[in-house]
C-alpha cells in the first residue's frame, strides 16, 4: 500500500496541497514579471484595489457619469453633463482655470488624459446602479459621478463603496447622503437640507415676521423628508408652527389635490420642497389656485432653471437657497472664468447643476494630485485632510468625518421683473452664509464611514 494514500493531506494524484500552492504562486509570479516592469513597480507601491491599477494602465483614465436625461430632473441632468465636460476639457488642456484647482500643471490629471462616458439614469436608482456597474467593470472607471435625486446618489454611493471606486454626488439635498448613508468612497460638495434650512430660516423670519403658520409640499422620498425635517426644526425653533405636510410622489404632474389641502390649511407660508419639473408644475398650479396671493412661498432648495421655467413674475419675492448663482462672477475671479467660458460654449448662463459637476470634478483632480496617485485609499485620505481650497464659491474644505464639503450657502430672493438687469438676472443674493455656521455637529445624522480597503 502506498503511504501517500494514507496521508489525508495528499491528493489522489499524490501532490501535496502545499506544493500545489507553491507552484501556483510561481506561475502567477512569472505572469506578473512577463507583463512588464512598470506594472510590477505599481503593484509593489500599492496592492490592487477596485480598478487600481487596471484603470491607470494606459495614457488615460476613465470617468463614468450617470445623470438623468429623462424624467422630472432631466433639465438639471443635461446641465450637469455640460459642467463635467467643461471641467474635463480644462483639465485635459491644463488650462489656467484647471491649474487653479489642480496645480501640477500637467495636462490631464497626474498626466493622464481624462476620458468620460455618459449614461441616462432616468432619475431611477436601479438604472443608475446598472450603468455604474458597467462603467466600473467594463471601462475600469477610476471615478464615477452624477446625481440630481438623492435616492440615486445614495444608491450610487453604496455601489461604489462596495466596488472601491470613488463616487462624487452632484446634486443631492438629503441629510442622509453624508449622514446615515455616508460612505468612505463618496463625497458631496453641494449644500443640503440641514445647511439650507439653517441658513434660510432666520432670513425668512426677518422678512416675513414671527408666528407664521407653515404648509409643506414635499416630494415623497429621502430628499423631501429630510428637507421637511430640517425646515420644520429651524422654523419651529423660531416660533413658527407647522399646519400640514403634503407628500407628493416624485414626478407628479397635477398637484391640485395637494394644493386644495394646503388652501384649506390656514397657512400663511408655503414651503415648497419640490425640485426640478415637480417644482415647475407645483408653482404654476399654486398660482392658478390663488395660493401665491394668499401665502408667501419659500423654496428651500431652489432648482436650477426654476425662474426661467415658471417665469420671473411668479418667482419675485420668493426666498430660497442655491449652490451657485452666476452673479458670483462679479466678485470672484474664478467664478468669472467659469461663467464666461460656460456661456461661450453653451450660449447661456450655467445653472448650479453645471457648477456642482464642474466643482466636484476639479476638487477630485485636486485630491488626486495632492495624493500623487490614483490609489483610492490615498486619494480618500487626501480628501480627509480637510485642507482649505480656494474655489469659485470662496474657501472650502472637506470634513473628514462624513465627507461633506464645508462651504457657503447662498440665500437668494426672486427679483421683480422690472428690476432685472438682463434676461438671466432672476435673483438677488441676499446673504452668503459661511459654511461652519450652518454645518450640523459631527455625527449628527449618524454617519459611520466604512473601511478603506
Amino acid at each position, binding site marked *: 500500500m502506498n503511504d501517500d494514500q494514507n496521508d489525508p493531506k495528499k491528493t489522489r494524484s499524490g501532490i501535496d496541497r502545499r506544493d500545489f500552492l507553491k507552484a501556483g504562486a510561481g506561475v502567477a509570479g512569472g505572469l506578473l514579471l512577463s507583463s512588464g516592469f512598470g506594472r510590477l513597480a505599481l503593484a509593489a507601491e500599492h496592492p490592487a484595489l477596485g480598478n487600481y491599477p487596471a484603470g491607470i494602465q494606459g495614457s488615460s483614465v476613465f470617468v463614468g457619469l450617470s445623470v438623468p436625461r429623462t424624467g422630472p430632473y432631466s433639465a438639471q441632468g443635461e446641465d450637469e453633463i455640460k459642467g463635467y465636460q467643461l471641467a474635463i476639457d480644462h483639465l485635459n488642456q491644463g488650462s489656467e482655470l484647471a491649474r487653479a484647482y489642480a496645480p501640477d500643471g500637467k495636462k490631464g490629471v497626474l498626466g493622464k488624459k481624462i476620458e468620460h462616458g455618459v449614461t441616462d439614469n432616468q432619475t431611477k436608482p436601479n438604472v443608475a446602479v446598472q450603468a455604474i456597474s458597467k462603467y466600473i467593470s467594463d471601462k475600469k472607471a477610476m471615478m464615477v459621478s452624477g446625481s440630481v435625486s438623492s435616492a440615486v446618489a445614495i444608491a450610487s454611493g453604496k455601489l461604489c463603496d462596495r466596488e472601491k471606486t470613488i463616487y462624487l454626488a452632484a446634486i443631492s439635498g438629503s441629510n442622509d447622503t453624508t449622514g446615515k448613508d455616508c460612505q468612505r468612497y463618496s463625497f458631496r460638495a453641494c449644500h443640503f437640507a440641514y445647511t439650507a434650512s439653517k441658513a434660510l430660516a432666520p432670513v425668512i423670519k426677518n422678512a416675513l415676521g414671527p408666528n407664521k403658520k407653515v404648509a409643506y409640499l414635499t416630494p415623497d422620498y429621502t430628499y423631501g423628508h429630510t428637507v421637511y425635517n430640517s425646515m420644520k426644526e429651524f422654523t419651529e425653533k423660531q416660533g413658527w408652527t407647522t399646519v400640514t405636510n403634503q407628500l407628493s410622489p416624485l414626478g407628479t404632474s397635477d398637484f391640485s389635490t395637494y394644493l386644495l389641502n394646503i388652501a*384649506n390649511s390656514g397657512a400663511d407660508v408655503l414651503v415648497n420642497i419640490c425640485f426640478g*419639473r415637480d417644482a415647475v408644475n407645483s408653482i404654476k398650479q399654486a398660482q392658478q389656485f390663488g395660493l401665491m396671493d394668499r401665502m408667501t412661498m419659500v423654496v428651500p432648495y431652489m432648482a436650477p432653471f426654476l425662474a426661467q421655467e415658471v*417665469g420671473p413674475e411668479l418667482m419675485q419675492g420668493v426666498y430660497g437657497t442655491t449652490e451657485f448663482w452666476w452673479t458670483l462672477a462679479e466678485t470672484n475671479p474664478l467664478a468669472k472664468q467659469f461663467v464666461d467660458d460656460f456661456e461661450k460654449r453653451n450660449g447661456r448662463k450655467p445653472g448650479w447643476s453645471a457648477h456642482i459637476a464642474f466643482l466636484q470634478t476639479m476638487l477630485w483632480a485636486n485630491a488626486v494630485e495632492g495624493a500623487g496617485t490614483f490609489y483610492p485609499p490615498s486619494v480618500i485620505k487626501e480628501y480627509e485632510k480637510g485642507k482649505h481650497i480656494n474655489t469659485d464659491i470662496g474657501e472650502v474644505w472637506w470634513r473628514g468625518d462624513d465627507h461633506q464639503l464645508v462651504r457657503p450657502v447662498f440665500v437668494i430672493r426672486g427679483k421683480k421683473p422690472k428690476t432685472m438687469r438682463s434676461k438671466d438676472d432672476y435673483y438677488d443674493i441676499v446673504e452668503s452664509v459661511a459654511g461652519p455656521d450652518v454645518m450640523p455637529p459631527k455625527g449628527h445624522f449618524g454617519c459611520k464611514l466604512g473601511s478603506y480597503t
Partner: protein
Amino acid sequence: MPSLPLFLSQLFNGLALGLLLALISAGLTVIYGTLGVLNLAHGALFMVGAYAGFVAMEHTGSFVLAMVGGMAGALIVGLLMERIIIRYFYQRPAEDQILVTFGIGIIITEAVRLGFGGISQRVAVPEWGQGITKLGFLFYPTYRIEVMVIVAVVLLLLYLILYRTRIGMIVRAGIEDSLMVNMLGINVYRVFLLVFGIGAMTAGFAGIINAPIVAVTPDMGEAILVQSFVVIVIGGVGSFPGAVVGGIIAGEIVSLTSMFNPAYSHVMLFAVMALLLAVRPQGLFGIEGRE
C-alpha cells in the same frame, strides 16, 4: 376627519382631473376598440399636441389657434404613423403591435427632446381663463373650470359621432366584423385611418388644453399614458362610455385619497384597478371575452 368644504372641494377636483383623463383615455380606447391596436405611442401624441400648440401659441399669440395647432400637429403625426408603420401591423400579433407603438413613442419623444431640449416650455393661461372663480364652497382656477366644460363638450361630440352618425355606425360595425363590412363595399381601411386620426386628435387636444396647467416637456406623455391605461382597464378596454366613467372614477380616487394620505393617492388608483381585475376582469363596461 377632513371638513365638509374640503371634501366637496376634492370631490369637485376629482371630477376635473377625471374628465381630462377621460378625454385622453377615450382616444386610446377608441383606437383599441376599432383597430385592435394598443397604441403605446398615445402619450407621445398627447405631448406632440402640447408642443404643436406651444409653437402655434408662440407664433400667433392666440390660444384658440394653439388648440387648432395642437390638434393638427397630433393629427398629422398620428396619420403618418398609421400610414407608414402601424397599418402593416393590424394583422400581426399583439406583442408586435405593442413593441412597434412603444418604439414609435420613444422616437417621437426623443425627436422632440432633440428639437426643444429637456427644459420645460411655458404655455400661458389664455386671457379668458385667468383668475379664480368662487363656487360657493371653494375657490377654483377659472381655466380649470373652463377645461371641464370644453372636455365635456368634446366627449359629447365624440359620442355623437360614434353612436349617432353613419360613419360611427360603420366604425362600430368594423369593430364587430371588419371582413363583413369590407364585403359590403365599404373601404374598411379608410375608416380605420379615420379612427386613428380621431384618436390622435383627441390626444393632441388634451395635450394642448392641459399645457397651461402642467410643464410642457418631452416626457410629459409617459405618466399620463400609465394613468390612461388604468382608466381603460377600470372602464373596460375598448368601451367609450367605460373610458369616461373610468376617467371620472380614477380622478375621484386620486383626489379623495389625498385628503387622508396624499402619499397613497396614486397607490390607491392601482389598488382599485387590481381589485377590479380580480372581481370583474373585463372592466365596468367591457364585454366579456372580447379581444
